């Protein structure tokens, strides 16, 4: 199997790709509630609980381009915009491969350092199931 160039990964919200990203990370978790009893013979046990997922990203701040700019992400959070269909793709911007689910823009940070390019970062919180495309 060929390795994947991370540049070919994209985050798509609805039909718009998040622009100017340097990194994107998909985190998927399952809660593991403790199920240890006196019958566990000294070994901790658990059951499979709720699953959740989140996407974090960072990039270089730029207001141009056709897609979802950092400013538009910030505006979506301020407006408490409804969930959108989020795709975490592994084939570039076509969205034909990867993972998808409903998600909400949750956090956004904009950093302007002295004599460095301004950067931004943020996260999308999954609302419901995550499934393969």
């Amino acid at each position, binding site marked *: 199997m060929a390795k994947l160039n991370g540049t070919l990964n*994209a985050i798509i919200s609805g039909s718009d790709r998040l622009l*100017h*990203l340097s990194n994107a990370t998909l985190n998927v978790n399952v809660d593991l509630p403790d199920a240890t009893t006196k019958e566990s013979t000294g070994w901790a046990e658990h059951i499979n609980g709720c699953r959740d997922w989140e996407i974090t990203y960072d*990039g*270089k701040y*730029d207001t141009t381009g056709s897609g979802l700019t950092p400013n538009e992400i910030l505006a979506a959070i301020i407006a408490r915009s409804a969930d959108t269909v989020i795709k975490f793709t592994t084939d570039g911007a076509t969205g034909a491969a990867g993972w998808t689910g409903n998600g909400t823009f949750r956090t956004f940070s904009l950093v302007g350092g002295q*004599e*460095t*390019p301004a950067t931004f970062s943020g996260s999308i919180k999954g609302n419901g199931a995550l499934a393969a495309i």
Partner: protein
Amino acid sequence: MSTALVDISYDLVDGIFDILNGNVVYTGITYPVYKSIPKTPSSVYVHIGDILHGEDGTKDDFDYYGTVQVIVVDESSQGGDKKKAQAILGIVRGLLKPTKSTIFSCGSRTLVIFSLESMIPVIEQADQAITRVRLIDTYNFIIE
């Protein structure tokens, strides 16, 4: 924004040249600015030196970061005139960065960052036993 990988060296050199050329004036004398040193240069001049750069863009576009040297050269007297060279270097710096936020134009490219990193003074033996003073300013840049 650069959507294809390109060489930005001469856009940057041209941008620096346009700012400095004809404007490096000290005690009423205008000193030449060279992109490349001619066979018989002036005894005092400013040279836009080497550019080292790499690419550090995003998933959408290319950004180029690196360093560029701006060098004041003085071999106007037997021992070189370091004081004059330093005065000219100060004028050059003032032209390139008259304010903290100044970003000059580089043709079709957008200069994002231009800041002084370091200065190295070099005193060396030139032809005919003349001492040459070279004050090498190294600037950091990010251009897209």
